[in-house]
């Protein structure tokens, strides 16, 4: 080999360095050994984090990206190592999270012959990636890595998979590491159509009851400051999606908080009563539409999205604007004066007073109480990861987010097991910040083994296990819509979570009484020797409200527990 020849695996590591990668989350195995070897032989500064399951690695990379806006990298082996990443890739894809997943693969000449640990991961993941590669030549590595990062991080972001046969990672690569990209079909949206901006401004000037719906797209585009300036100048109230938490300060006087199935009553009322809806970077997910044909029926709908395929997919807007959210808002702000919305805002304030989010601090211990207290003790400044279920919705309701990158939650996929690894990933990215993970007893048990990763690296994370001994969200549906016929939701046999934590070297606390909430959370917050876990024995059969049954119109929102029998929901899960 000549001097400038390196092995494929070494080229991969050098290319990752060039992309500014600082962490790789992963798990080793035969087909990936040359790449793992390159981590040593290149003497790279990239830190490799050995997880306990490949799904954990992907969720960590996901949490890392959501907490920073920067892509992270996953490195795993072929076959089962690769297929274990699938749920995590799908989760990232649904929520437009940038990520590079590198999988080892059997040697090229054995592909298609059912070699040991050969899985067609390129084919298996095709529907859940933004793009993917199977590397066929060592000299393609620099171009492919460069393209992968470009694709993952631009436009509407998403995961990109690179499958690397072992003979390629072990074979030579002589190509220039700063290769040209070859992406003739990938064009990014630039600028914004000024005529459309003027149309939007015109529609806004006629509106008496305008409303901004801020989604994840606004967050991704870094539009938070622009959005705040625009909403304040134009005096337009703002509601946000689950993934939009933090793109507009939820404690702002113009903020209505989260809308949708378990959103605030006032946000959902605003949706019903607005005469103009300005959707900035939300894909009109079914969790916020209720019944699509009835959604904002009497309002002018404007949709700003960088992904043309989202416009008209669920809702046909009167004005469509395919553009980057920040670019569009900045342009729009130039043409929109302060609007006469005082009466409308007062009206909505009335709803805030009449239908606040509420819970009882007395009686049994409530998840809401714990989350609310944590919010206060942490002054709303924690980076919050959640798992999926009732606790997730309550965390969304009671942990207000005033700034971006502090809300990590699986929205589109609703992936149980996401919370803990996502929190860990975020803690690697931002070691000096406070990290909390609100997780159910069900979801926690899907990825709790990553306690080892958290303990080993002494990450400053607070793991709040909201333990209702049930798959609570499913139980809630069974209670409300299936005459309380519980089926497959009783988590009989839960371990002692404090002992479990301690066995990993993680400090554990128990919290059982409402009167102890402040004290126990206070102790957990002042604990500063790595991760700690708080097992909270909460009310077993509490239900999340407000609730819009899936497929029902937003007008049919249940603000309080229903007194009548409910029909089975017609919408998707």
């Amino acid at each position, binding site marked *: 080999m000549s001097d400038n020849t390196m092995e494929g695996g070494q080229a991969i590591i050098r290319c990752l360095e060039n992309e500014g990668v600082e962490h790789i989350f992963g798990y080793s195995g035969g087909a990936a050994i040359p790449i793992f070897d390159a981590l040593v032989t290149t003497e790279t500064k990239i830190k490799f984090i050995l997880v306990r399951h490949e799904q954990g690695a992907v969720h960590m990379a996901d949490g890392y990206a959501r907490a920073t806006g920067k892509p992270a990298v996953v490195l795993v082996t072929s076959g089962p190592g690769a297929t274990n990443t699938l749920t995590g890739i799908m989760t990232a894809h649904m929520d437009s999270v940038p990520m590079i997943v590198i999988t080892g693969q059997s040697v090229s000449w054995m592909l298609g012959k059912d070699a040991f640990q050969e899985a067609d991961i390129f084919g298996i993941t095709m*529907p859940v990636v933004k793009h993917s590669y199977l590397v066929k030549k060592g000299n393609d590595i620099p171009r492919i890595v460069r393209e992968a990062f470009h694709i993952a991080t631009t436009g509407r972001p998403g995961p990109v998979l690179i499958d690397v046969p072992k003979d390629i990672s072990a074979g030579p690569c002589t190509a220039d590491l700063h290769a040209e990209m070859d992406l*003739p*079909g990938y064009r990014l949206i630039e600028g914004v159509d000024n005529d459309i901006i003027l149309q939007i401004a015109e529609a806004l000037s006629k509106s008496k009851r305008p409303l901004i719906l801020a989604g994840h797209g606004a967050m991704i585009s870094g539009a938070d400051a622009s959005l705040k300036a625009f909403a304040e100048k134009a005096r337009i109230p703002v509601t946000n999606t689950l993934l939009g938490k933090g793109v507009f300060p939820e404690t702002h006087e113009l903020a209505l908080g989260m809308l949708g199935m378990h959103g605030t009553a006032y946000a959902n009322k605003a949706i019903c009563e607005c005469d103009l809806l300005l959707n900035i970077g939300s894909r009109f997910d079914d969790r916020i539409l209720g019944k699509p044909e009835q959604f904002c029926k009497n309002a002018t709908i404007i949709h700003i999205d960088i992904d043309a395929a989202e416009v008209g997919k669920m809702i046909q807007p009167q004005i469509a604007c395919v553009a980057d959210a920040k670019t569009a808002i900045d342009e729009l702000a130039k043409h929109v004066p302060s609007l006469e919305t005082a009466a409308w805002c007062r009206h909505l304030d009335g709803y805030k007073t009449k239908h606040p989010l509420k819970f009882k601090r007395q009686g049994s211990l409530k998840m809401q109480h714990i989350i609310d207290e944590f919010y206060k003790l942490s002054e709303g400044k924690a980076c919050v990861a959640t798992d999926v279920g009732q606790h997730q919705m309550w965390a969304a309701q009671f942990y207000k987010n005033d700034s971006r990158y502090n809300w990590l939650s699986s929205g589109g996929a609703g992936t149980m097991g996401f919370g803990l690894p996502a929190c860990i990933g975020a803690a690697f990215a931002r070691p000096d910040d406070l990290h909390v993970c609100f997780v159910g007893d069900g979801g926690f048990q899907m990825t709790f083994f990553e306690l080892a990763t958290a303990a080993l690296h002494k990450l400053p994370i607070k793991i709040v296990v909201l333990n209702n001994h049930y798959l609570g969200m499913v139980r809630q549906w069974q209670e409300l819509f299936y005459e309380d016929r519980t089926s497959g939701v009783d988590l009989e046999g839960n371990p002692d979570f404090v002992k479990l934590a301690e066995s990993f070297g993680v400090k554990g606390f128990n919290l059982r009484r409402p009167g102890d909430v402040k004290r126990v959370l206070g102790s957990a917050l002042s604990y500063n020797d790595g991760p700690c876990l708080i097992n909270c024995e909460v009310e077993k059969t509490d239900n999340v409200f407000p609730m819009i049954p899936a497929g029902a119109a937003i007008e049919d929102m249940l603000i309080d527990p229903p007194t009548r029998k409910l029909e089975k929901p017609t919408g998707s899960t």
Partner: protein
Amino acid sequence: MTNSEKVIHTLSVYVANKPGALARIAQVFARRGFNIESLVVSPAVDGNFSRMTIGCSGKPDGLEQIIKQLAKLIDVLHCIDHTYDQSVMKEMGLIKISVDCEGRSEALQIAEHFGCKTVDLTKESMILQVVGDPAKIDALEEMIRKFKIVELVRTGKVVMSRGQKRT
């Protein structure tokens, strides 16, 4: 809408020759509830690219979503719906019929009317080759049915825009 009246849309897709491109395109149709009725892929003038003509059917309101999802694929340069734009649309068909000397002259008469070539002839059978727009091949098929059609193979249509318009 009955099956016979269903609209078959004609899409042209201009795509970079990258591994997996065809699979990704096929997945868009499968996942979003559209059927591929015909598919023709061939190299473009620039050998780094391919032309696809896809005949497809499904719910009318789904087509726009299909086109956008195709255009969104990293390897797709553009995707155009030619269903209603008077483009040139051609297809070739081979039809093997079972015919003896008694019926042969009538079969040849029909073939001539449709401008077919007889590309194989035996005592009991003949193969007709027909080129034209898909409706013409349908019509021939209808007429020649009075003989026993042993086999029928169609290439699927290819499309090209007229004049200055791009395909």
